[in-house]
Structures are given as C-alpha cells and as structure tokens.
C-alpha cells in the first residue's frame, strides 16, 4: 500500500556524528545487558528519601510509597539528553548531561527544586512551542489545595527556567500524578491531559454516588491549549472525573489507527482503566469495555508499543502479582465469587490482579496474552517500558517494582489485629504507627524481558543486570551517551537513583529526530513505520510512558543485522507524511515535517473471508451455577459445556436441520436453516433437565432416515446416578419426527464424547460413549461405554466384554475411530483431561486393547479438550488435531515440569480432595491458596495456622509419603494444542502456531476455507468459567489456520478472517447449502453466531 508514494521526501542527515559499529550480529545471539554506574562516576546522587514518622506514613497518606518520577530530554539542544528527578519529600534535581555519562547537578542555578510538597510525576514537553523543552511537575499529598498547585518551568535557554504555570492556566491544585502534553485536537499546539488520583479510599457503598459526580481534585482533567492559555474542557470533552479515579498512568497512542491520538488511563483499585478513543471532534469516548474483555485490577504503570511488529499499538498494564510461590501464597486470600459478581453487576468490568498485555489484532479487537507472553507476574510494579535494548528489531521490556511495606500480606490482615487485643491484655496502649513500622519490607529486583519474537518474552532480569533488590518507581530510557543504544534512568525509593548503561552486544540501529511544525516542534503524536525486507517496525512519538515519567524525544529503531532500511515513513500529527528510502543503519537522521506530503487516500481494505449473517434465536438461560461451591479445588467448571451441535437433513427437504444442545434449564432445540433464515423444527422435544454434551445424527436402525443420539453430560447438582445423566436415542419416523427410544441402555455417566463405529464388524453402527466426569467426585475416572447395535437401533451395553480396564480411560473429551493397524477393523483414539492420547485397538471385533504406546510418543499427557481427524498433509491417512488448555494461564507444563493432580479422601470425610501440584519457578508447590486448602480440609487448619508457614509448604508438608502414594495421581506434561501427523511410525506431534495457544480449544473444524485445495482449520475455545484467580481466558476469537497441504499452518488475523467472536466457543458446525457454505459457532450462554464463507 505504500508504493503509492512516488516522491522522496527531503532527507537530512544529522552531520558530525555517524557511528561506525562493529560487524552486525545475529538477532538470536543478542542479549541485552546493562550496568549500573556508580554515582561517583556519573555525578548523579539524587535519592528519593522518605521520612516515615507520626505525621508522614502510609496510614495518613495512601500513596506514601509510590515513589518519584524521571524525565529525560535535551533541554539545551546540544544533542545530549538531560535528567530531571522528582523527590516525594526531597527537592527535585536537574542534571545537565556533560556527555560520556557524566552529569552535573544544576538544580540550584536552574532554580527548579520545586516546593516542599509531596511531589509526583514530571514531564518534559515544549509547552509554549518555542523549540525548547519545558518541565511540568505534579504535586499531591494531604496538604491544602493551594500548596499542591502544579508547576510549569518554562525553558528560557541556557538552563534558565521560569515558573509560569499560573500564566498558562495549568497551576492545577488537583492531586496530580502526571501531566501529558499532546495535540489531541490536531490544531498544532500541545494540549494537556492531567492525570489525578484521590487521596481517600471511597467506601464501597458510595461507589454509585461517587461515580456520578466530578471530584475537583481526584478527577482527571483535559486542558485545551488556546494560544498559550489552557482551558479546562474535561466535562465537555467526555473525560471522567469521579472520586473513584486513582490514576497511575496515562499514555497517548493512536490505538484504533484513525489518525487521532487516543488515551489509555490506568486506575488503581476498583475503578476500571479508561480507554479514551478520540472522536476527532474535540471529545473522547471511554470504550474500554468494548476493547478489553478483562483488565488489570490494581492497574499501575503502563506502556503502549508494537511488540510484534505488525504496525499496531499493543497495550500493557502493570499490576501486583508476584512471580514466586512464597509471595503469591502470602498474598492470595479467599476467592469471593459473590463480591466478584457484584463488581461485574456494578459495571466495574472483569478485573484480575496481574499484568495484562492486550495484543492489538486490528479492527479494535484485542486479545489479552500477558501470560502467554510471559510478562504477567512482576510483583508490585510501577513502570513498564518497551524498547529495543539490543537493537535486534524486537522491543524488549523493562519493569520497575517494589513496595516499601508488605501490607497486602494476608497474615497482616488476619493476625495483626491481635496486636490491639494483646496490648489490652497486657494493659498497654496500642500505637497504630507501631503496626505500620512492624510491617515487613521486601525489596525485589526489577524485571527485564528479552523479546524473542513470536509473542514470547524471556525473563533475563538477572543476566541483563537487574539482579539488585530494591524499590524502584519512575524510569525512562534514552541514549545518554550517544553510542546508539538506549540507557536507563531509574528512580529508587530511599536509594540513589540508578543510571544503567546499555552494554548489550547491539544490532544495527537508526535514531530519528523529528522536527515538527512550530507549536509542536518535537512532533508529538507522530508515527514512524520502517520497512526492511518486507518487515515492519513501528514507533510512536509519545514520550510520556511507564510511571510518572517521560522519556527521550529521539526515536530508536533496532535493525538487527540489517544494514539499511528500505523505507522510513513518518506520519505527522496532521497525517501528512514524509518518506525516506534506503536509509543506512547506525546513524541519527533528522526528518522535518515541513517537507512532508499531504495525507494520502486510505487504501481499500481487503474484505474478510467470513461475513456474519443471521443466527437462530437460541440463548440458554444465564447460568449461575458455580461448581466451585460443590468442589472448591477444581480449576474450571464442568457444568458449562454447551451448546453442542449437530446437523442433518431430517425430513429430506434439502434444507439442513441443526441440533443445538440444551443445558440444565434450557432444553435442546432443532432448527431448520432455509434460505438464510432459521425456523424451529417441530419434530423434536427435549427436557430442560439435561445438559447435552454432544449429538450425533446417524441412521441407527437402517431405515434410511437419520436418527439422533444425544450424550448427556454436565455436572451442576447432578448426583452420580442422576436420571438426567442418561444418554438418549431418538429414532426418526421417516418424516422427521424424532421419537425417544425407551429401551436405550440406562447407564448414568456424565458423557464427554461419543463416536459411532462398527465395533463388532456386523455392519451395524455401534457406539463408544466416553465418560467425562463423575459429578461431585472430580477427578475420579468415570466409566466409558461400548454399546452394540443389533441393527434395529436397539443397543446393549457390552462394555465389560469389549472394553479393557473396566472402561476407565480417563476424563474423556474427544474420540475418533480409524483403522490404525490396517486390519480392516475400526480402532479408537481417545483424548481427555489429565491423560495422554490413547489408542484402543480393535481385536477382531471382539474386544479392544490399549496399544497407545505403539501409536503415540511419551510425555503427551495433557488437558486435552477436543479432537478431530482429517487428512491435513494429503497423504491419504487421517491426521489428528487435538485441542489443549493452551499457554495463556499461570500454569506451566512440559515433560520435565509436569502438573500433578493428587486425589483422595485424605481427611476421610467422604469427599474427594483433589490437590493440584505444579511448578512455580523451579520447584513444585501445591496450587491451592491457604484459604482454599483450609476450606477443603479441616485437618489443614491446624497444620498451617498462618499464611507464612503455608507459603513455604510443599506437597510433602501437606501429606505423608504413604498418603500421596495411595492417592490417585494424574498428570499433565503439555498444555499445547497440537497437530499429530499420521506416519508409519505412529503419530508425530507438532505444536500448532502460537496464536492457537492463547486459550483452551473446545472445538475444531477442518475445511478448505480459502478454496486453495488444502484443508484449513478453524479453532474455537476460551474458558470463562474458571476460578477467580485464574481469571477469564478469553483471548481466542475463533482462529482460522490456513493449511498449506503439508501439515503447516498460518494464522489469519481477525481483519483477514472476519472472525472476532467473544465468548466460549464450544462447537463449530459447517453447513453446505445451495446458498453457499456457512459456519455456525455454538457459544456458551450466548446466541450462536453464523458466518457465510465468501
């Protein structure tokens, strides 16, 4: 699309400085490395020192330990970025960059030390548009509003400043966190978004009241720059300003690629983050809930950057989830489903305590993949900065963190209250400050993650030079010594600020200085796209990032081993463009807006493969059943499995009938799909007691019309022998009326899967029915059944004759039949939860034998959730595609680090105690939190009387060796969804593409979507019915994987496929009609969605 540009823009190469770089290195070998320089060497000895006393402490001021900010920028335009630090209780400091990483404290001569008022964030921005960066400092604290008016230091050149906030009209007395200057109305000057926070916690009961009103000091504000005078237009511009706002970060970015700068605002506590989309008419709309299905709960710092080089801005918000077992266990309290439901009901959206990475998939569709990317747990985190530290072309991630007092420690909540009582018994006065100072203080190291591509980050914190444990807050990156890589400046609490020199073995790079028009000479809001060998790099000129800080105005492009950029495009705030071609690596280039070309016509969008059409009106009743009330230690709820689907032409009229399975409370229905519309099919009725796990249309009695088998599953309040668990057979009377066959075997298992096969070779279709779960007894292995058909549709249960191991194979979720050994009898392949794929070989139609080892390699125990067979590589045999739990959760599993599930009635009270053990870091720990475990077993209450003892507990501290040996032990060695290539040596597993691992897969369809003659795959999944701690796994949108006929697959983006389905897809059905090909998606507790294939 960029070939339209025919004119080369004027190219200005910054003279006098061209770096000769050592020979380029391979991207894969590059490892970022930083070295903290001594204050003696740098001259930077700023320390954000707090004084904790009776007047100043965390009880009096909520944000006492949040830390200070950092701003970097070239204040005297000498090509060297200078430094500014804010001190909460100490004076601010300005350091002039002398070059060679030496700095001079010029605070005094510059006169910018500021006030003795609680100081927060700082930004450098050219507020008056004169080409010199000014400094805007924010204030907060408990003092009188007059004392905390923000300060604007106007740069008069030569490091002389004048405080002019009042003159400009932005001496705002709010409790401010940060000022962000950007040209929101594209009138050529910089406006101000002022991020504020409340200093009192709002009582939960007053949420609704507080939300309705604008708070003068807590509410965020938008100031429009009218020729140097700023006007507060918050209300008319749609900026929220309630007392619930605890703004901790604001970042500007063109999130929806419409050319207007949008805003992300993160909020601490219950108030959701805001995603303000710029309407282009002077107003914003908060469209967070339309874009994010869940968000960080206690959102703190944030960054927005393109992490996967697709030209789209991805959004990352920080939270407080620690990485290690001990701190997690100290932090986790009881899960409260009722409180969570209230939060949703009151419109606070789904919030979970962990970092969230919202991957921008285009078309305003985002998938949250923080856990898949490996960057979700960085403890109590403040600043997030994505930048290409090693110039390998992928933006890496730096996170500062730490909180001076561990006051979310659960023992503190539960046991520190004893202090008052004990003081009373001892007849001594209680001193609340003593409580504060007796809280533990745990320094933690900062995090550095190497972006290894493919949506993966590797934690290299220690080797990258961030092993020191401390408390870090604001941070900024800048090439301080002009050696072509980005260095870091970090503000620490009660410790000298850190200057981290980048010592990476660096790839090639280009640095870009933007020269915008007067009024916005630094080109704030500009975008840069760089193309090299067809690959894209994308940057935005928005220096306010991370937390309370602003970074360099010089853009950094890492190139890896590439020595030349094919084309470099700048999209200026007014959407005019500059383009440079063939730009050599390892230099600074300066690009001026004055040379840009006007805005090009937007290219025509390619139309997607699918278009949405009308769907049957089938929504199961909203189910409030909470399986964790019955078995608190399960991870997901086995009740929510519907809707299942199946299709057939029942009455021979040429139109398909579609069975949509019911769930307890909503009976199944059959619809006819006629010429694009859906009609209820009258020949079938089902009861609302059942939960239909699956349906199969097949001519079971050989009369030429299709009959229906429905497998009843679910969990709910079903007893193990519940009548509602009986599977059903309905025979077609030939006219399309389905009549229940009353003599169908009356076993009661919660069915998970079934497959029609001719087990005994008599030519009649028999049934294998796989059990999924025993309601109330998870994870005990349920029975599976083999039902033999006498040809008339009369089945007999012959499981005991045919099935080995008493029919107990595992918690089955998928089954297919194929002749594995070429003996002309039909064999079975089974998958299920906490089990390995299983091959049952048919022995001459008389019985089955487990020969899994001959067909599947080892270490494939998984949380398998679906199975499909199709010839994907065109070699004439059936390959397998198996859905697994995916990689977008806290769980990790591989052959070395398996997940183990122990189950027994350990405390002999009649209930099964399923205790999961999994790796957290390098060791195995029990998964349940202390509260969960104590709720399951009374005996554990005296074993772990506080959180501290449990935080170190291993499985062997919970149970004796003998107890564990006697328990049922299930295992998971892989969580990846896979493609199994059928070869002469059995099935060879291949991992499906990374985008297929973002959620559990519950449904798989193979069909040729793009009509290239090769079968493609459509995957559906997600899991919203999880423990609160796991959270919604909702990153899946219905994924199309295009097959190349060789067993290789490439994913389509939602823009390309047209699929952006939110919800838990449980079934996918393909309808081939005279009107074309349709896909129906069955979504749990939602209406189905129907798409026409183009």
């Amino acid at each position, binding site marked *: 699309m960029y070939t339209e540009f025919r004119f080369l823009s004027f190219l200005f190469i910054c003279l006098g400085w061209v770096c000769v770089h050592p020979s380029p290195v391979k991207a894969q070998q590059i490892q970022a490395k930083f070295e903290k320089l001594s204050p003696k060497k740098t001259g930077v000895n700023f320390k954000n020192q707090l004084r904790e006393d009776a007047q100043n402490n965390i009880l009096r001021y909520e944000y006492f330990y949040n830390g200070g900010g950092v701003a970097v920028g070239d204040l005297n335009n000498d090509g060297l970025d200078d430094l500014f630090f804010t001190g909460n209780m100490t004076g601010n400091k300005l350091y002039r960059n002398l070059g060679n990483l030496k700095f001079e404290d010029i605070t005094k001569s510059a006169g910018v030390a500021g006030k003795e008022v609680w100081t927060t964030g700082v930004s450098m921005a050219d507020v008056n548009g004169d080409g010199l960066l000014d400094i805007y400092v924010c204030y907060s604290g408990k003092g009188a509003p007059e004392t905390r008016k923000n300060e604007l230091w106007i740069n008069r050149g030569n490091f002389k400043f004048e405080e002019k906030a009042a003159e400009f009209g932005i001496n705002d007395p709010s409790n401010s966190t940060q000022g962000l200057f950007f040209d929101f109305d594209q009138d050529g000057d910089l406006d101000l978004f002022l991020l504020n926070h409340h200093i009192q916690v709002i*009582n939960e*009961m007053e949420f609704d009241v507080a939300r309705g009103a604008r708070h003068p000091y807590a509410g965020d504000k938008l100031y429009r720059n009218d020729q140097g005078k700023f006007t507060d237009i918050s209300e008319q511009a749609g900026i929220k300003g309630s007392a619930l706002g605890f703004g901790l970060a604001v970042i500007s970015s063109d999130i929806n690629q419409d050319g207007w700068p949008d805003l992300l605002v993160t909020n601490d506590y219950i108030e959701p983050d805001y995603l303000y989309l710029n309407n282009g008419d002077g107003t914003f709309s908060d469209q967070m809930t339309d874009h994010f299905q869940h968000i960080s709960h206690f959102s703190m710092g944030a960054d927005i950057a393109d992490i996967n080089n697709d030209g789209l801005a991805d959004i990352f918000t920080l939270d407080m989830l620690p990485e290690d077992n001990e701190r997690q266990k100290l932090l986790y309290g009881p899960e409260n489903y009722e409180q969570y439901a209230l939060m949703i009901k009151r419109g606070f959206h789904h919030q979970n305590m962990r970092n969230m990475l919202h991957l921008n998939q285009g078309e305003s569709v985002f998938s949250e993949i923080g856990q898949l990317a490996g960057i979700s747990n960085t403890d109590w985190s403040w600043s997030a900065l994505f930048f290409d530290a090693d110039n390998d072309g992928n933006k890496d991630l730096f996170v500062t963190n730490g909180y001076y007092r561990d006051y979310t420690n659960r023992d503190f*909540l539960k046991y520190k209250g004893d202090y008052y009582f004990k003081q009373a018994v001892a007849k001594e006065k209680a001193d609340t400050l003593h409580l504060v100072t007796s809280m533990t203080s745990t320094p933690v190291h900062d995090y550095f993650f190497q972006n290894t591509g493919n949506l993966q980050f590797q934690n290299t914190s220690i080797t990258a030079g961030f092993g020191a444990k401390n408390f870090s807050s604001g941070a900024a990156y800048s090439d301080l010594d002009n050696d072509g890589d980005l260095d870091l400046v970090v503000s620490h609490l009660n410790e000298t600020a850190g200057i981290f020199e980048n010592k990476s073995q660096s790839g090639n790079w280009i640095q870009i200085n933007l020269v915008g028009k007067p009024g916005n000479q630094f080109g704030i809001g500009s975008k840069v796209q760089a193309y090299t060998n067809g690959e894209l790099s994308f940057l935005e000129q928005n220096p306010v990032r991370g937390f309370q800080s602003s970074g360099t105005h010089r853009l950094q492009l890492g190139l890896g081993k590439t020595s030349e950029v094919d084309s470099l495009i700048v999209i200026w705030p007014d959407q005019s463009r500059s383009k440079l071609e063939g730009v050599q690596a390892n230099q600074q280039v300066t690009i001026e807006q004055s040379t840009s070309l006007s805005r090009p016509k937007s290219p025509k969008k390619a139309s997607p493969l699918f278009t949405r059409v009308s769907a049957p009106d089938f929504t199961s009743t909203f189910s*409030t059943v*909470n399986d964790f009330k019955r078995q608190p230690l399960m991870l997901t709820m086995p009740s929510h499995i519907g809707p299942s689907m199946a299709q057939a032409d029942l009455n021979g009229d040429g139109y398909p009938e579609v069975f949509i399975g019911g769930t307890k409370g909503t009976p199944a229905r059959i619809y006819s799909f006629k010429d694009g519309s859906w009609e209820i099919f009258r020949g079938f009725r089902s009861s609302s007691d059942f939960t239909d796990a699956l349906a199969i249309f097949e001519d079971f009695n050989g009369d030429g019309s299709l009959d229906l088998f429905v497998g009843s599953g679910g969990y709910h309040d079903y007893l193990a022998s519940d009548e509602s668990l009986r599977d059903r057979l309905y025979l077609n009377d030939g006219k399309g009326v389905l009549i229940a066959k009353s003599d169908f075997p009356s076993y009661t298992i919660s069915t998970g899967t079934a497959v029609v096969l001719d087990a005994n070779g008599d030519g009649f279709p028999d049934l294998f029915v796989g059990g999924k779960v025993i309601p109330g007894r998870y994870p005990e292995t349920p029975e599976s059944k083999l039902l033999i058909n006498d040809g008339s549709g009369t089945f007999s249960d012959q499981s005991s004759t045919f099935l080995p191991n008493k029919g107990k194979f595992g918690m089955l979720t998928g089954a297919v039949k194929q002749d594995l050994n070429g003996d002309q009898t039909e064999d079975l392949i089974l998958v299920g939860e906490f089990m390995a794929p299983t091959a049952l070989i048919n022995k001459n139609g008389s019985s089955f034998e487990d020969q899994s080892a001959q067909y599947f390699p080892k270490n494939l125990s998984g949380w398998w959730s679906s199975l499909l067979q199709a010839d994907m590589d065109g070699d004439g045999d059936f390959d397998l595609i198996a859905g697994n739990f995916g990689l977008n959760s806290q769980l990790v599993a591989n052959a070395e680090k398996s997940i183990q599930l122990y189950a027994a009635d350990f*405390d002999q*009270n009649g209930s099964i105690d399923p205790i999961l053990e999994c790796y957290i870091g390098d060791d195995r720990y029990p998964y349940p939190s202390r509260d969960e475990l104590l709720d399951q077993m009374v005996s554990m209450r*005296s074993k772990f*009387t506080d959180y501290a003892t449990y935080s170190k507990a291993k499985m062997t501290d919970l149970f004796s060796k003998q107890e564990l040996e006697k328990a049922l032990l299930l295992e998971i060695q892989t969580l990846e969804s896979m493609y199994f290539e059928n070869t002469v040596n059995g099935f060879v597993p291949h991992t499906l593409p990374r985008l297929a691992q973002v959620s559990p897969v519950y449904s798989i369809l193979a069909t040729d979507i793009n009509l290239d003659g090769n079968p493609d795959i459509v995957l559906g999944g997600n899991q919203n019915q999880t423990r609160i701690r796991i959270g919604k796994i909702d990153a899946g949108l219905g994924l199309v994987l295009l097959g190349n006929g060789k067993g290789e697959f490439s994913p389509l983006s939602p823009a390309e496929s047209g699929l952006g389905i939110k919800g838990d897809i449980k079934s996918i059905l393909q309808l081939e009609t005279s009107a074309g090909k349709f896909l129906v998606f069955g979504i749990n507790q939602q209406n189905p969605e129907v798409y026409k294939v183009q």
Partner: protein
Amino acid sequence: MKKAFSLLVLCFFLPLGSILLLAQKQHQDWARIYAAELFHITEVMVTDVASPPVAARIYAYTNLAAYQVISQSGGKFLKGEIPTLSLGENQLKQSLPSPEFAAVYAMFLVGEKVMPSGYLLQEKQAAWEKWGLKNKLVSKKNLAEHLTFAKTVADQVLTLAKSDGYIQLTALNRYTPREGEGFWYPTPPAYMAAVEPEWRTVKPFFLKNLEEFDPKPMAPFDLNAGSSFAKQLDEVYQYGLKLNEEEKLIANFWDCNPFKVEFSGHMAIGVKKISPGGHWIGITGIAAQKQNLSFSETVYIHTLVGLTLHDAFISCWKAKYETNRIRPETVINEKLDPKWKPLLQTPPFPEYTSGHSVISTASAEILTSYFGDNFKFVDSSEVYFGLPEREFNSFNQAAAEAAISRLYGGIHFRDAIDNGVDQGRAIGKFIWSKIEKL
C-alpha cells in the same frame, strides 16, 4: 491431714501473706482460676477467628472435658448431672488427689485438638503443670496419674467431637445466593463468604429434634408500604439515622464480632473481638466468681452454658440457612439510601433469626435457673476489647439488651430479635428441664 502438712512445710519458706493467698486459691478462688484458664482458650479462638457457631462448639467440648474429669473422678454436683452423649464404655471411675488439676489439663488437651492454633495451649499446659506442682495440687509422684486421667477423658471427649459431623462440613456444598429478592447476599465491606451454611448438620447435645425449636415464621419480604417487612425495614433504617449515645454504647458493647475488617486502600486489618458465646462464657465466669462457686460447680455451670450455646447456635443456624433472609444493610442500600451504613459491621451470614438473641436468651435462661433471678453483676467481658464495664440487674436484663442491641447496630430486623428471643428461651427451658429431671 495431708494438706495441713503441706501448709506447715510451706510456712518455712513463705511469708504469712502468701500462705493465706495460697489457701484462698485452693479453697475459695477456683471460679476465678477456672475462668482465667478458660480465657486462654478464648484467646486462641480470637487469634484463629473462630466464627460464632464454631466458638460455641469449642466452648462445649473443652468445658465438657473438665466436667467429665470431675464426674469420672467421683465428683458430685448440686444440680442434676449433665447427660452427655455416649462417651463409650470405658468411663473412668477412680478418685484423684486433684480433680481440679486434671480437669483444667483435660480442657487444654481438648482445646489443643479442636482449635487450629490449639498448639498455643501447650505453653499454658506447661504453666498449669508448673503451677499445680508449685501449689501442691499434684506432686511429682502423682503428676503422671493426673495427666493420664486427663488424657483418657480428653480422648473420650475428642472421640465424641470427631463424630458430630464437623469434619464432614467441608464435604458439603458452600453457600450459593438464592435467586430472587429478599435473599441474603454477602455484605460490605469485605463481602465475606457465608459462615457455616450446613451447621444444622452438626450434632447437638440436647436438642434431639431441631424442628421443635424452629422460630416463628418471619415477615415475608415485601417492600409495599404498610407490610410488616417494610415497617421493620424502616425501623432499622430510622434507628440507624438517630442513635443516641446510650444506644450506640449498647450496640458496641454487644457487637461480639470476631473479625471486623477495616480497610485503608490496599491495607486491610482485621479487628478482633470475642464471639457472642465468648461473652456469655465471660458472664458465666463473673457470676461463678461472685457466687464463690466451688471448682465442680464452676465447671458444671460453664459446661452447661457451653453446651447450651452450642445447641442454640445449631438451632439458630438451621433457621438462618432455611430462610436465607437478606440483611437490612443490603435492602436499605438498594432501596432506601445507598449511603446508609449500620453502626456495626454486618456479620457474614443470613439474618433470621438473630444469633445473639437466641444464644443470649438461652444462656440467661440457664444462668437464671442456676443462680436465681435478679442476680446483679458487673459485666467486664469486653474490657480487653476496649469497651467499658457494664452493670446488669439480672441475666435476663443482659440478654434482652444483647438482643435489642442488634437493632441499634443496624444488623437485624425486629422479628429476628423477638422471635430469636423466644427461640432461645424455649431452648434454655428445654435444656434446664432435661437437667432437672435427673
């Protein structure tokens, strides 16, 4: 004879005052000593945050151990014996030099096992042993005999406790809020999970047929003006708006919330108090001391009150989770005034009937029957929790005040209090009748 000898020996080592004090302790001060030792159990419950019904169960079994030591060592009581459920065939019949020593020790042994942090009592056991030796309750020679006796009885009691359905509770379903209006939903600020929704399955001591003690039906949920519910709702609401100092004091005095969560941003801290049962055990101790009860009688009345509390809580909890009634705070915030806040933090379980009303009245019934009516006392049970002493002219007066305090506190409707009082009275009378018959 033996005791006189001991005293004589002691004279050589101790000044006269000490001897008198010692003599007093041995002969007259048992009520104070027993109450003080029992308070160690209360302290552990406070640490563990034992919920009100769980606390009552702990008081029942720990006191029962002490009672059984007295009973099985041949002790006699003024009133009828407490019929405890079968303790098995192997009851001891053996006299002991100091049943008092063994009784307290057995109480600790049971406490150690029935409370999560029961291990904290080990230090108290050691102190008790030391004290017992020092004060010649036991000698080095016969100490083992006492410990074995205490252990045997404690084991009997623990066997009984093990089969009362308590450990089966975790095998039962947790509370799921009923759909529809008027049903209980967790309450601010912590929205704590429902406490013990299946407590009715725990075995009581006296109330063989729980249905007999079901409270009268509550006013159905009906917000229409003039309905009984609407009137009661308005009454709680109005009280909350204009409480006088005396009413506030009463509400706070009887708060007895084992875990009140106070929030400050991310920081939350649990402020702890004794449970309602703990308060009445406290009153029992105060009355026993005032009356200078002997050791056996002190144990007797504590045990009887402990068992009564336990049965009363089972009966009350049965009503709570059969009605699942909404708390005033929830309705008021939703329908009348989103800013209204009860003076007390709403406890985490359904509203009907008022637990404090049931168990206070049942306890007062027992105490009145035992000590007589118009028994004046100064209630200092809550002093450790920052509340003043309070004088009462009778147990019934105290119970009535405890009951109405829940209305002042904004956590109960009138009918849950009135019908709770009736429920408690019926339970108390029934239990006393069982004692008297024997």
